[in-house]
């Protein structure tokens, strides 16, 4: 196995990781600030992808599609926050799980009722299609490089928002002491709606970006949702930094595990069964990792001690 292949696989893992971060950042913010488990986050990802595919189909502009996807997801997020989620902040996790599970059903079948059962098509923009040659002679798809850059840019922007702006101070304060910031005169309802819509917009953006290289179909949000949960649990729930580190760990483990585990087993097994066992183990790898992290640090890598 050549060094070039390994570098390329690391890039792939990185790209997968930053996309997971877009999903996980919203989830972890929503949990950190409002204490809410949102299973419907994957549905917002799906909304983003469907809206992007529709707008791109109508206008032919990828940029417009991205903006529309974020706007639609943010709007959908704000609507469900104000109509349903708001009533769940003071209930226990059990009710939240059930209510947001119900939202998944409504979103999935609703999307199918509106867009039909066939997968939609969303193309990468012409500017970013095709491969680019990196140093060392690595051929790498231009669009995937753009995804890595976009993901890192969003991470940076999010960090600036939370560390440097007034609203970021309110968010951080909200994570620590809800009653206190309400007492200080911060409009907590608007803050919550904003945080939820922000998380939704990030999920919508991820859906639109990823939709261009995958298939846009009903149910696409659920595998990503589970992975995003794994990410925030590994990173420590409520921590943006944890979500970032967790996303990269999960992205790299999943990608590299799928490549190297079968190779590892080939060293002492016949190739056919080695590929199969290696593949089985690699599909379990991130869950094993998550269980191991939790047993080692019961509140994740950067989680607040309970």
């Amino acid at each position, binding site marked *: 196995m050549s060094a070039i292949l390994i570098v390329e696989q690391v890039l792939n893992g990185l790209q997968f990781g930053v996309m997971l971060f877009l999903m996980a950042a919203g989830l972890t913010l929503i949990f950190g600030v409002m204490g809410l488990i949102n299973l419907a986050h994957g549905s917002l990802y799906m909304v983003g992808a469907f809206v992007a595919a529709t707008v791109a189909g109508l206008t032919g502009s990828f940029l417009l599609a991205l903006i529309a996807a974020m706007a639609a997801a943010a709007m959908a997020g704000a609507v469900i926050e104000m109509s349903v989620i708001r009533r769940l902040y003071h209930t226990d996790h059990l009710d939240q799980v059930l209510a947001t599970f119900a939202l998944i059903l409504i979103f999935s079948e609703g999307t199918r009722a509106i867009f039909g*059962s066939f*997968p939609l098509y969303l193309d990468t923009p012409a500017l970013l299609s095709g*491969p680019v040659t990196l140093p060392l002679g690595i051929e790498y798809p231009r669009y995937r490089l753009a995804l890595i850059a976009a993901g890192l840019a969003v991470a940076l922007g999010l960090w600036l928002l939370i560390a440097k702006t007034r609203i970021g101070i309110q968010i951080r304060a909200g994570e620590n002491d809800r009653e206190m910031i309400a007492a200080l005169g911060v409009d907590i309802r608007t803050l919550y709606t904003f945080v939820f819509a922000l998380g939704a917009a990030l999920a919508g953006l991820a859906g639109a970006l*990823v939709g*261009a290289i995958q*298939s846009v179909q009903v149910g696409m949000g659920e595998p990503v949702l589970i992975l995003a949960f794994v990410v925030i649990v590994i990173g420590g729930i409520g921590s943006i930094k944890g979500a970032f580190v967790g996303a990269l760990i999960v992205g790299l483990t999943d990608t590299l595990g799928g490549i190297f585990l079968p190779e590892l087993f080939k060293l002492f097994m016949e190739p056919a069964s080695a590929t199969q066992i290696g593949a089985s183990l690699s599909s379990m790898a991130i869950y094993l990792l998550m269980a191991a992290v939790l047993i080692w640090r019961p509140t994740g890598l950067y989680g607040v001690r309970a």
Partner: protein
Amino acid sequence: MTLKGILLSASMIALAGAATAETRIGMITTLSGGGASLGIDVRDGFLLAMEQAGRDDITLIVEDDEQAPDVAVQLADRMIQAEDVDIMTGIIWSNLAMAVVPSVTAQGVFYLSPNAGPSQLAGRGCNPNYFNVAWQNDNLHEAAGAYANSAGYSNSFILAPNYPAGQDALAGYKRFYEGELAGELYTQLGQTDYAAEIAQIRASGADSVFFFLPGGMGISFLRQYGDSGLDIPVIGPAFSFDQNILQAVGADALGVVNTSQWSPDLDNEANAAFVAAYQEAYGRLPSLYASQGFDTANLILSALEVASPADDPDAFREALRAADFVSTRGDFAFGPNHHPIQDIYVREVVQEGDIFTNRLVGVALEDRGDAYAAECQM
């Protein structure tokens, strides 16, 4: 996506009022969730044939299995226990077929598979009441292997999801393919990102790529493969190139060779009439699934001309076995295990106006049966 549970979306489609010797057909297929497009096509093809026949003594009951085995089993129980059906059909997925078919045929009901053809049901688990009107699961992969030989490929990279149908696919390809393997990979079921696999293909020095990735997985793979700038030729079974998927893959599929027992431009009278009528009725081109649904219905109709399954099951079975109907595939016959003996074609993806579709380029295997017929004893 969907909650599993019993689903009784009873879309009772009574083609006409009750007549004297009524035949009741139960169709369980996937009409919701990510795999719905296949089930919808099978159903629409089947309905088209039924409407064309215009018989008023057939009642068809269609139910959605949500692609969940336990739902399918419940529906089958209900159709047999409460609806008293004589014939069942419709299941798309092998795992659902394995859950439903053995108990259906054991209860004396006929089952005609319009899509799934798991090896167990073709071999040791074959049954006189079970007929497969589509293909044995390995067939299209075998044809891809045969095509690779004739195209002069000698170093294939092959990949499929890590589940039984995926393992069968690679085995089927290797059964006919005579060259070397540049690599063999199992991906995760439902995987949507193939960057890592594509990088391995690039590094492997392969001269051809064979993949079996049904549904959304295939869309993702082809899109990402096209974007990677790799130009190693790709071969696959028709499942990743059916009429509905192609529109979502777009230009990345152009020129890709795939194997199928049917193609919209297959040159026979029945097929031309079918394609035209289907477009007229539903406003879209038929997929291979639609053709399989259409053929299944016509096979049933041809046997009903001879005997009623309720009154004389033995005569009805013989009539099915004779396969005396005009197939959209041209020649069609059943082997000893009630699986098709048919030609498998090579197609190429082309663009016609805004629509992506398939065109025939040749025959991969002639009069192909399957590898399991010898194990079948009935």
